Every structure is written in C-alpha cells, then in structure tokens.
C-alpha cells in the first residue's frame, strides 16, 4: 500500500483510537476511590522518596533538585511507559488484528497516547507543588507544549518500532526492559547534568534523551530557555526517530499478521 494510503487509513481510524483511549482511562480510574488522584500521588510519592534519598548528595540545592527531578522524571515515565508498553501493544492486540483490517499503528498509538494523558495530568497537578518548591514561572514555560509535542513525535517512532521488533524477536521485550533501565541511569535524571564532572559532560550530551529532557528541565527547574543547540538537537532527534520508526513499521506492517 502507498504511504498516502496508509496515512489515510490511520486518519480514518482515529475514532477507534479515541475510543480505546477513553476505555483505558475508564478502566484505570474506575472502582478506586481516589481514582485519578492516584496518578498524581504516584509521581509525587516517588519524588518525595528520591529527593529524600538524594538530598544529602545535593545538599544546598534541595528545592531546586526536587524541581529538577519533577521536570525530568515525569517525561521519563512517559518515555518508559510508551516504549515498554508499546513493545507489547501489537502482540496484545492479536485478537483484533486477526478479525478485522486495522492500520496497525493504532495499537502502539493507544499505549503512547495513554502515557501522554498521564503526563499531562501529572504536569498540571504537580504545578502547585512546583511553585511551592520555588519554580519561577516565566516566558520559557511557553516551550513546554513544544517539548511535549517533540516527545510525542519521538515516541511514536520508537514505540512503533518496538511494537514490531517484539513480533519478530520475542526476547526483544526483555532486552528493551534492560536497555530502558540502563538508559534511565545514563540520562541526567537522578544526577543533574550540572552535577556531572565537567570532563564527562560531553559524553552525557551525546545521549539524545538528555536533549529531550532538557527541554523540560531548563524552563521548569531553572526558569531559563534551553540552549539553541539543545532545541535544535531535540527537534532533529524527534524527527529522525519518527521517520526511522515509521518506515520500519510500515515496511513490515502487512507481514506482522503472519508472525503473530
């Protein structure tokens, strides 16, 4: 099928994605008294635990360190949910795929968009806490929607690629899990970029995720604009992941059903 044909099918299937998403949200928040509060308490408690543990290491910058954690941990959670959840998405949807013709991108999209719904809710809900911790709201915050958009574009590519990789190599799921854990520690989240010894900083700057998260970290934790290098790099990374991920995905999309 042509690329235009595939895109057309995906656009036509958007109501299905919307329904899946509503369904997932309903299922998640139903039958729990605190409901949606849990998705806020969760990151909040994690922030408390981690910042308590690391506060001694970064004494003196306590408020700012917690802000940095908030600014990077929330998007990272979205990344890991999108990729680790995305890699199971096609396998889990086997029943649908066998019964009806779908543009298969809707299955990783379902997982990824759900991770973004949670990210948005958490960002909004933790806003008062960020202000309490000393966030200085300023013009750089206007960059956050763009940062979220770039993150989404990148994750659609990576999530789509992960979802088909696992169809062909079933042990890829475990490798992806290990990879994500390593990636977490190699990304300046627990240890802020500035706290890394200067001679190593250039290596950490090779990590694409550093640039992605810096788009959140600079405006939220430090109240400044990210450097233009970071902005440009993040944009290129997002676009490249999107194009690479989807070209792999579309190439094998029609073959996937024979490998389920």
């Amino acid at each position, binding site marked *: 099928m042509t690329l235009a044909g595939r895109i057309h099918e995906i656009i036509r299937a958007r109501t299905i994605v919307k*329904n*899946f998403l509503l369904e997932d949200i309903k299922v998640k928040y139903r039958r729990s008294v605190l409901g949606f509060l849990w998705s806020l308490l969760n990151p909040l408690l994690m922030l408390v635990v981690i910042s308590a543990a690391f506060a001694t290491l970064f004494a003196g910058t306590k408020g700012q360190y917690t802000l940095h954690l908030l600014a990077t941990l929330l998007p990272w959670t979205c990344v890991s949910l999108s990729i680790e959840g995305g890699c199971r998405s096609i396998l889990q949807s086997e029943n649908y*795929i066998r*019964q009806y013709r779908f543009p298969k991108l809707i299955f990783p999209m379902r997982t990824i968009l759900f991770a973004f719904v949670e990210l948005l809710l958490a960002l909004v809900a933790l806003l008062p806490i960020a202000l309490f911790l000393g966030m200085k709201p300023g013009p750089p915050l206007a960059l956050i929607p763009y940062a979220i958009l770039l993150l989404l574009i990148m994750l659609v590519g990576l999530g789509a690629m992960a979802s088909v990789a696992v169809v062909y190599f*079933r042990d890829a799921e475990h490798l992806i899990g290990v990879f994500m854990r390593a990636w977490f520690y190699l990304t300046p989240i627990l240890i802020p970029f500035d706290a890394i010894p200067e001679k190593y900083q250039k290596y950490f700057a090779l990590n694409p995720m550093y640039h992605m998260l810096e788009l959140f970290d600079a405006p939220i934790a430090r109240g400044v604009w990210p450097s233009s290098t970071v902005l440009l790099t993040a944009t290129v990374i997002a676009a490249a992941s999107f194009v690479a991920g989807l070209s792999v995905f579309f190439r094998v999309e029609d073959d996937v*059903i*024979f490998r389920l």
Partner: protein
Amino acid sequence: MNPYIRADNISLRFRLYRNRHPNIKETVIHWLRGKSQDNGVTEFWALKDVSLNFPPGDRVGIVGRNGAGKSTLLRVLSGIYRPTSGRVEQEGFLIPLFTVGFGFNGELTGRENILQAGAILGIDRKEMTRRVDSILEFAELEKFADSPVKYYSTGMAMRLAFTTATEVSPDILLLDEVFNGGDAGFQEKALVRMRALIERTKIVIMVSHSMELIEQFCNRAIWIRDGHAAMDGPPKEVIAAYLASISAGHPADNP
C-alpha cells in the same frame, strides 16, 4: 455508488517456520559463528491465482475441505491478509464477521462494550448510542447492561457479541462459520436476525460446512479446492459436484 469486490489473480504464500520466533540471542550467536540460522522455513501456497468477481446481489457460499483455503480467501478479501501477488479491489462498507465477540473488554460494561464494538466496526458513536437499547433488548441483557462483561456467563457474552455484530448494515458482509450459540430459543431468534442482515446486505460471502445453510441463503457457490477456485456456479450444482468428489475420494479432497 455500487458496492463490489473483485479479486484479480490473487495468490497467497504462507511461510511456516519451524522456529517461528527466533530470538535475538540465538540470531546473534549464529551470526557470530558465521552461519546463517536455519529457521526451517517451509512455504506453501494457500491460494493460487484466484480471480473472482462479486457484483451486488451476490449471495455466495464457499465450500471445500478443511485447509482448502476458504478462510484464507475470506481474509484476503477482507484485507486482513495482503495477497503475495494479485490484488483485491473493493468499493463499499465491508464487514468481516469471523469470530463473534472479539475484543470484548471484561472491565467495561455491556453498554460500553457495544459502543466500543461500534467504533471498531466504523459506526458513528451517536448512531450506536441510539441502537444500544435495542441491542440489549434483543440479547435479553437489559438488567445487566451496566455490569462489567467479565461477570457475564458464557451464554450472555455470546448473545451480546452476536447481537452487536449483527446490528451493522454493511454493503459487503464476509462470514466464516460464525453463527451459532445461545440456547435453543435464542438460536431461533438469531437465525431470523441473521436472515434479515443478509437480506439488507448487497453482497454476502460466507464460508460454511453446512450445505443446507448455503442452499438456503445463497444464489451462487464456489468450490475451493487446494487453493484454486475449482467450480463457480449455482449452489445446487456446485454442492453436488463437491459432495460427489468427496465420496469418490479425489486425492485433493482428502485431508
């Protein structure tokens, strides 16, 4: 717009892998040792150069032995399988019903699942909302409409699935041995509903092992043998030839 569906010289090759899901670990090890991995691929052609044309008004029954390629043909026509060569052209709203009740979400209520199924089948949510009550009524589930489907009995879930699936009004309907289920009383109702669905659909293609059903519903029959369309014509003649071939023990008709 006149709906139609047409298959031009479609062939479908299946690859069967002895090692269906190679893992990265093995693949890398094999590669390091400098030999390619033997995944034991055997190929076979499930469909060979099939050309069929289905104009509006067709009620087609597809007959053939198990493994002859009947279900594969339906899956190619519905777009679930892309043919290895050849093409399928189609115009009109097509719905395949292969297994009733795919994708019910146990956590959601009967009502919510109906809406979800509607979305998957491409029915407008507003339109589906209007029809929910009549679906629940037919499935005799009004009292359980707002309970999660995971608490339904098998019979209840089947009634819900059947009723939801048959609520549609497609132009083209593909059926693969789906329709039974529920108790005797419901089965009778279900058959009437099925007949109504077939009557309002412009093109119906069904796979069935019930010659009775095909004679009753169809005005055309196709006999699929060994991946070919071996015969295409009035149901009575095709069925007679097919049954004769089975009792004569034609090699291609022995499983």
